[in-house]
């Protein structure tokens, strides 16, 4: 098979990218018959497009060249159209909480994939650390879902992802200073590491946006409070992941990385997609992103006087795949559940700054604990989907929970 090379593939010429309102109003996915991972792919690509749009706006705000500003405004408008076409795939029949569960499934299985593929051990540790937290969010929201909407998260995740306690949510509230990691070195980093950091950062950023906007739509106090608590952790995660990126990269090389990453992800998801209608959207957007990438590469040559090949992978990395990560996650649960951060590193002991933060923020209780207690009081036990047997951590097995 011929290798797909984003730098030589032409794509659709830039002046042919505009679409009508009707073309942007994608026919939504039917959640009852769809592969849950089709919805996951749409959620990821929405997050990627949202980042493309906001990155573009921030770049425009520091750009002094009018001609260049106009050029950037055009591609940004197209990225915003792509965001609509992608996000409008989401089923209107799903409630915000049902979509929230899909967001957490994305966080769990996308971050697991990235952790498994990441070549740099320090960066891999950052993903392994974060994924155990989103894994716990999935469990908390699943309990809320059954309690207030009388539906089971199993229907959303379809047993592809297990639902059980991870690192307890109340322990995710670290002092903000301890969420800042060391960054990779732009001159020596593996190009795949740049793509990984940008992908996970974008996904977490969109999760943060989503929770801060849908949380207040609920009227049940427990739902409102849980969205606040987890929403704040998503903001911590954005800090955690964005700090992995070398801040010394120029705006233009960052633009190239963004566009290359979009090509990489659309290509990956096009290869994996089972729904032909959705696959056609991934293919169309791939062909648009190729043109965006070429334009970005030209800008990097023009503005920085450097070749984009210096920062890009020599060939397209192995396509990103949505697939179950149950064994991987169980291994992490067994070995890393009690980690926290201190400075830019990880420790097992609760240190003074962590303890102080915990005392302040959790002093009148924690919604993420309360949701489980309330669920237990109403249904007899907590809600879980444990397809591979009991929880790997003895203290977190359901019997212990039910006897509490």
């Amino acid at each position, binding site marked *: 098979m011929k290798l797909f090379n984003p730098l030589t593939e032409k794509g659709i010429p830039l002046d042919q990218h505009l679409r009508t309102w009707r073309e942007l109003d994608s026919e939504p996915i039917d959640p*009852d018959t769809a592969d849950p991972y089709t919805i996951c792919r749409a959620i990821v690509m929405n997050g990627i497009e949202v980042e493309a749009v906001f990155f573009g706006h921030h770049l425009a705000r520091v750009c002094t060249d009018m001609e260049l500003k106009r050029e950037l405004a055009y591609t940004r408008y197209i990225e915003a159209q792509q965001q609509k076409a992608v996000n409008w795939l989401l089923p*209107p*029949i799903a*409630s915000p909480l049902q979509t929230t569960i899909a967001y957490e499934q994305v966080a769990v299985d996308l971050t697991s994939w990235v952790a498994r593929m990441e070549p740099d051990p320090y960066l891999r540790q950052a993903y392994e650390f974060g994924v155990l937290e989103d894994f716990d969010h999935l469990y908390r929201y699943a309990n809320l879902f059954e309690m207030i*909407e*009388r*539906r*089971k998260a199993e*229907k959303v995740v379809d047993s592809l992802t297990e639902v059980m306690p991870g690192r307890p949510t109340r322990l995710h509230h670290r002092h903000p200073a301890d969420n800042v990691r060391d960054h990779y070195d732009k001159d020596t980093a593996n190009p795949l590491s740049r793509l990984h950091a940008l992908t996970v950062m974008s996904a977490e950023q969109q999760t943060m946006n989503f929770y801060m906007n849908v949380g207040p739509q609920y*009227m049940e*106090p*427990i739902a409102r*409070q849980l969205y606040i608590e987890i929403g704040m952790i998503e903001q911590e995660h954005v800090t955690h992941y964005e700090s992995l990126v070398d801040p010394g990269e120029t705006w233009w090389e960052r633009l190239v990385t963004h566009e290359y990453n979009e090509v990489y992800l659309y290509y990956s998801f096009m290869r994996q997609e089972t729904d032909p209608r959705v696959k056609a959207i991934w293919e169309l957007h791939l062909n648009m992103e190729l043109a965006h990438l070429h334009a970005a590469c030209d800008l990097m040559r023009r503005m920085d006087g450097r070749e984009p090949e210096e920062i890009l992978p020599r060939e397209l990395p192995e396509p990103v795949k949505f697939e179950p990560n149950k064994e991987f996650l169980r291994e992490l649960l067994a070995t890393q559940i009690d980690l926290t951060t201190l400075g830019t590193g990880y420790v097992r002991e609760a240190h003074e700054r962590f303890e102080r933060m915990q005392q302040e923020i959790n002093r*009148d*209780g924690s*919604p993420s604990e*309360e949701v489980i*207690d*309330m669920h237990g*009081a*109403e249904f007899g036990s907590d809600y879980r989907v444990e397809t591979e047997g009991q929880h790997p951590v003895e203290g977190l097995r359901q019997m212990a929970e039910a006897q509490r």
Partner: protein
Amino acid sequence: MRAATTVVRQKDLIDVLLEQHALIEELFQLVETSRGKAKKEAFTELAALLQAHEEAEAEIVHPLAAATIDAGIEVTQERLEEEAEAKELLAQLIKSGPGSAAFDDDFQQLRASVLEHAVHEERYEFKHLRASQPPETLVELADKFLKRQKRLAATA
């Protein structure tokens, strides 16, 4: 925090309605994935539940919503129209039966219409009833709704 202690909330009308919506969704899926006798049985159960559910809603839920929520009359009128459409589709399906040639296509149409209707109820009616009605009223109405459904089922 506002709800510092864990109190078991009594099941209210909205809980009952949501539970039945979830059950209806599951039965739709069961009919779709079953064959032969199992499909027929699942469809009979679904049809009975849909009829009793919609009828009890028309008697208890929509009038309450019409009287108490903002623009209640218009909102419930649209729900009643959706219900009438679903009722007609259901009657056709009962007549033709799961073995007939057109069943699967018509059944898809019913499913889409019922599930969309349920989302509209949840968004435009139930949410507002939870906010406007005293909790004890909704708990009492849960009981009334279930009893009415039982009587409807007995006379069906």
